[in-house]
C-alpha cells in the first residue's frame, strides 16, 4: 500500500495497526501529533486501546510502567523536555524489564529554549537501559516501529523508536505501508509469563534492591542488552522477508572501498549520501556509515565498516560537553581501539545540527574535503570541532 504521510502519522498508523492495550501520553512538540492522530483512531473506534490522558510525562511513563507490569502492551510518545521529565521512570521501566515502546521525536533540550531537532534528548538518556533505534526517513521510522515490539518483548527491555523532529516528523513523504493483517501477525499477541493481573500468581514488581542484589540485577540488564543485538538482527531478517526492506545495526553506504567516511545518526544521513554520490562522480571515494541502533552500541559493525578508511568524521547532533567530542564519537573511537594501527582511520569529532541548525549537501562536501586534507597531512589537527559556527576558525564552514 502506497501512501504519503508525515513521520508522526506513520508512527501513529503503525500503532493503529498494532492496536496496543494502553497508551499514556502528554503532548509536547514535535511529537504531539502522534497521540493526536492516535486519539482520533480511538474516537473512531478503529483501535481498542485505553488512552490515559495524564498531567505530565512523568505520569505518562508511570502509566506505561503500571500497565506493562499489569500485563498490557503499553506505549507512549514524547520529545525533549517531556523525555527529560520521564528520566527517573526510564530507569524503573528498564530495571523492571518492562518492554514499553516509546516513540521519541528528537528535539533539542532547553537551554536556550528551542523546539527544533537535535539528539540531545535521547542521547541524554542513552545509559538508562533502553534499546534505541533511529530512523533516517519516514519509511524507516514506520518500519522500525513495526519491529519494536518483537524486539522489546523478546528481550524484556524497553525500546525507543527515534526520529528527527520536524525533519521527518512533519515532512510528508511517500511511504510503503504494510497490510493490517501482515503487521498483526508479524507483531503477534503479547503473552507475558508473569504479570500483576494474573490472579493465581501473586506478584511484586519493583522491589527494593539492597546492595547484595543491586549489582546482580544490573548485570542481568547488561546481559539482556548484549543479547538484544542478535534479536534485532533476527527481527530485521523476518521483517525483510515480509516487506523486502532490510535493516541492520548500521547501514553502510558506498563503504566497500571508501577512503573518507562520515558516521552519523538520523535524517542527515540522507544528505550525506547525496554528497557522497556527487563526490564519487568526481572520483572521490566517499562513504557514509549510518548508525541505526545506538543501544546496544554496534561496536563490532563500526569497527568492521571503518577498517582501512583513511579519515573519518564521527558526527554528533548533541553536545557531550566532555571537552573531547560527542557521545557517538567517543564510543566509535573506543570501538576502533582494537584495530591494528595500519587499518585504523584518522578520526575526528564533529558536533553539528544543534537546535535545528541546517546541514546541507555543501556542508558534507566541505567535511569530505576536510577529511581529504586530514588524510594527506596524515594527522588530525583538531580532534573536537563544530560545524557551521560563526567565528569558529577551528570548525567546519560550509
Amino acid at each position, binding site marked *: 500500500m502506497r501512501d504519503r504521510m508525515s513521520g508522526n502519522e506513520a508512527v501513529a498508523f503503525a500503532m493503529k495497526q498494532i492496536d496496543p492495550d494502553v497508551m499514556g501520553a502528554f503532548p509536547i512538540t514535535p511529537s504531539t501529533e502522534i497521540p493526536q492522530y492516535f486519539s482520533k483512531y480511538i474516537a473512531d473506534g478503529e483501535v481498542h486501546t485505553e488512552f490515559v490522558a495524564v498531567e505530565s510525562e512523568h505520569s505518562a511513563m508511570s502509566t506505561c510502567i503500571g500497565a506493562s507490569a499489569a500485563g498490557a502492551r503499553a506505549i507512549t510518545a514524547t520529545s525533549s523536555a517531556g523525555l527529560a521529565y520521564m528520566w527517573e521512570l526510564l530507569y524503573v521501566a528498564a*530495571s*523492571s*524489564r*518492562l518492554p514499553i515502546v516509546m516513540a521519541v521525536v528528537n528535539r533539542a533540550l532547553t537551554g536556550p529554549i528551542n523546539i527544533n531537532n537535535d539528539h540531545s534528548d535521547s542521547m541524554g538518556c542513552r545509559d538508562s537501559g533502553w534499546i534505541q533505534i533511529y530512523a533516517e526517513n519516514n519509511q524507516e521510522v514506520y518500519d522500525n516501529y513495526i519491529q519494536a515490539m518483537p524486539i522489546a518483548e523478546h528481550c*524484556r527491555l524497553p525500546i525507543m523508536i527515534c526520529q528527527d523532529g520536524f525533519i521527518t516528523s512533519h515532512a510528508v513523504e511517500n511511504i510503503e505501508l504494510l497490510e493490517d493483517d501482515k503487521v498483526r501477525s508479524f507483531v503477534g499477541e503479547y503473552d507475558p509469563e*508473569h504479570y500483576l493481573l494474573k490472579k493465581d*500468581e*501473586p*506478584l*511484586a*514488581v*519493583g*522491589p527494593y*534492591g539492597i546492595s*547484595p*542484589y543491586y*549489582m*546482580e*540485577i544490573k*548485570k*542481568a540488564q547488561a*546481559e539482556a542488552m548484549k543479547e538484544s543485538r542478535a534479536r534485532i538482527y533476527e527481527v530485521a531478517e523476518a521483517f525483510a522477508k515480509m516487506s523486502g526492506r532490510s535493516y541492520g545495526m548500521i547501514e553502510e553506504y558506498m563503504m566497500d572501498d571508501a577512503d573518507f567516511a562520515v558516521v552519523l545518526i538520523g535524517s542527515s544521513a540522507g544528505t550525506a549520501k547525496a554528497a557522497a554520490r556527487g563526490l564519487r562522480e568526481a572520483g572521490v571515494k566517499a562513504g557514509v556509515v549510518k548508525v541505526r541502533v545506538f543501544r546496544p552500541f554496534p561496536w563490532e559493525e563500526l569497527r568492521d565498516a571503518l577498517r582501512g578508511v583513511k579519515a573519518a568524521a564521527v558526527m554528533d547532533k548533541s553536545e557531550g560537553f566532555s571537552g573531547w567530542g560527542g557521545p557517538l564519537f567517543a564510543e566509535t573511537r573506543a570501538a576502533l581501539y582494537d584495530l591494528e594501527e595500519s587499518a585504523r582511520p584518522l578520526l575526528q569529532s564533529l558536533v553539528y545540527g544543534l537546535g535545528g541548525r541546517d546541514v546541507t549537501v555543501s556542508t558534507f562536501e566541505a567535511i569530505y574535503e576536510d577529511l581529504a586534507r586530514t588524510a594527506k597531512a596524515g594527522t588530525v589537527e583538531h580532534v573536537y570541532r563544530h560545524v557551521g559556527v560563526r567565528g569558529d576558525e577551528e570548525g567546519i564552514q560550509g
Partner: protein
Amino acid sequence: MNINEQSKWYELTTGAEIFEPATSREVKTGEWRTRTPVFDKDKCKQCLLCVPFCPDVSIPVERGERFETNLDYCKGCGICAKVCSFGAITMEEL
C-alpha cells in the same frame, strides 16, 4: 523460589520480580542490630506500651501478655527501652 544473598545473577528473576507474598519474613533484619534489648519479666507490669512503639513489630503478645523480643527482626533501635516506665527493658551490647 529460594533467592538469597548467595544467588548468582542468572538465578534472580527477570526484573527482580517476586512471585510469592510476604517474602519480607525471609529478611532477618536483626542482623543489623548493634545493641540488644534485655527484657526483665519481673519488673514488667504488662502495660504493653512498648508494643505499639516497636517499629519492627518485634514484640510478640499473646492473651494480653508480652513475651521476649523477637531478635530475628529487632534492629536494636532502643525505643522500647526509652518508653518503658518501669525499667523493664535495658539496651546492652551483646
